[in-house]
């Protein structure tokens, strides 16, 4: 017997069936992968400095990317959802296009704008001698370009769904627009922001095409784990899989820890 409260809504059968199939679909490949991975060489792989370096770089850059995406993406989502700026539809579409670009092309677009010969990159290079490609910031930029739209879209849908009544109440209480935003709008949308951040982080962590195109592949600076895995697949499949499983397990821990903290604090029955 479960501890389910007696009055709680039973899952409609169809939902339960479809949802369960979805779970199986996700679990199966991961399970197969876990079976296939040569766990015995775990110690060797972990001792391999190149691997741990790539792992660290991936973690650091994806976290930085997520932070920047939140800082810039939440305001952008707000503008898209709430302001009446002209051309909003167009801007929204443009800001989500980079998701649709094949990542390699996204990398080319970044080179075309921020590369050594790029529209802006050339200026940066000539004026302050700043060269982005093949540096760690380039990795972050590539991830941002590809992953931030996930945050923007998710958060915008959150803003669109949250009622404006609480915001109105806050304004009548003398709260400035910024105060309303930070103390009412954002907390009321926190589950969407968290979901967006997780999506962005995940997308950034797995980013390969844009990164290798824009940032290249240099150990310690731009060789992220997906790149290391890709190259390892050419030479040593087992190592590559092992590294990936490490990343998966790391993510698992983070995901389990994160979501428990945020979701479910809302609501309550009378």
């Amino acid at each position, binding site marked *: 017997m479960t501890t389910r409260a007696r009055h709680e809504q039973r899952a409609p059968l169809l939902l339960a069936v479809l949802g369960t199939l979805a779970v199986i679909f996700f679990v199966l490949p991961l399970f197969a992968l876990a079976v296939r991975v040569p766990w015995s060489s775990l110690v060797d792989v972990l001792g391999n400095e190149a691997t741990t370096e790539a792992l660290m770089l991936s973690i650091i850059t994806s976290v930085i990317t997520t932070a920047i995406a939140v800082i810039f993406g939440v305001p952008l989502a707000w503008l898209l959802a709430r302001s009446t700026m002209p051309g909003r539809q167009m801007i929204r579409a443009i800001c989500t296009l980079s998701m649709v670009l094949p990542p390699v092309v996204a990398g080319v677009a970044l080179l075309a704008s921020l590369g050594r010969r790029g529209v802006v990159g050339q200026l940066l290079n000539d004026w302050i001698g700043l060269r982005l490609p093949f540096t760690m910031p380039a990795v972050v930029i590539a991830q941002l370009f590809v992953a931030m739209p996930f945050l923007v879209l998710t958060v915008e849908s959150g803003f669109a769904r949250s009622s404006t009544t609480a915001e109105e*109440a806050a304004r*009548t209480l003398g709260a400035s*627009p910024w105060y309303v935003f930070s103390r009412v709008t954002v907390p009321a949308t*926190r589950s969407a922001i968290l979901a967006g951040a997780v999506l962005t982080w995940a997308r950034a962590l797995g980013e390969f095409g844009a990164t290798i195109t824009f940032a290249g592949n240099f150990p310690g600076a731009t060789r992220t784990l997906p790149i290391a895995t890709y190259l390892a697949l050419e030479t040593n499949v087992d190592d590559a899989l092992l590294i990936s499983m490490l990343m998966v397990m790391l993510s698992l821990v983070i995901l389990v820890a994160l979501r428990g903290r945020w979701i479910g604090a809302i609501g309550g029955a009378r």
Partner: protein
Amino acid sequence: MTLVADVRRRIGSLQLDASFSIDKGETIAVVGPNGAGKTSLVRTIAGLAAVDEGRIAWDEFVWDESGSGVFVSPERRPIGYVFQDHALFEHLSVLDNVAFGLRASGIGRRDARTRARVVLEIVGGLKFEQRMPSELSGGESQTVAIARALATEPKLMLFDEPFAALDTSARAEARRLFVAMANPSMSRILVTHDAVEALTLADRIIAIEDGSIVQIGTPSELLAMPRSHFVAEILGLNALSGQLNGDQLSIGSMSLTVGAHEALDGNVIAIIRPRSVSLHQTRPEGSPRNVWNSSVVAVDRTADRVRVQLGAPLNISVEVTPAGFDALHTEVGADLWASVKASEVAVHPA
């Protein structure tokens, strides 16, 4: 005049058109049927919507003016607003809901909470200060909404049916508080459906119907001469439209003799107090000039009085004592006789 409002605004199919002003320290009640535009009016004054045409000014400051395009946003108007649906912040505790306005004005958390507790104490909400809004009952939530709006000590309070969800004693307490709160530096607008509230709490009453003001006046002015059926009804009076000819008033098929009045032959509104009508089992003899036969449509009974709704030929409410009612041995659907003195039928031009 502290607030001078001339509001014209379209909301869906409703055309809101209301001009009025409020003195410093004055309390104005806004009454009107559902959908008349009361909430819309209050929202416009709060700055949550702008006038299409017109002007709202507070002392020497213009808040909203269609001509010049001036618009002061709500957070810069010294107002407090108790929303009809409370609109509490779901993610904050009761205490932090009340402290919100203070925090927004830059007061530190500790100070804000201390002052919020004082306000909660006053409205009787201290016992659930730690709860989240989702854990409150309907009345508790309304109490918090009131406390939250009061906490910032606004100069103009806007109450949208603030007592509707309160229980009898909480409501009596809230009304007492409302009276006690009156202070020369705070003006108040109170939207209500409760005649007692409007009559006892307000200095003046604005009656709105279909977006337009049908009457503004002090409670006694409205009681003396309600200008529309709705106003009469909310005040608990019977208002009847008819044609006056000398001292004969015809209302549908009925004809009533009216008392002393100015010469105003033609269309009039007649006001009859529920108490001034007597009910009888058999046709009464004696002084009342107006006697007619009718049937009981509904009976509302309370501890001290019984309200009897009569049907054709004259749809009016009559109030009698419980003892008097019991003596009639009547019930819904039964026939009886009604009488009213000519002097108790007051007429006003329509």
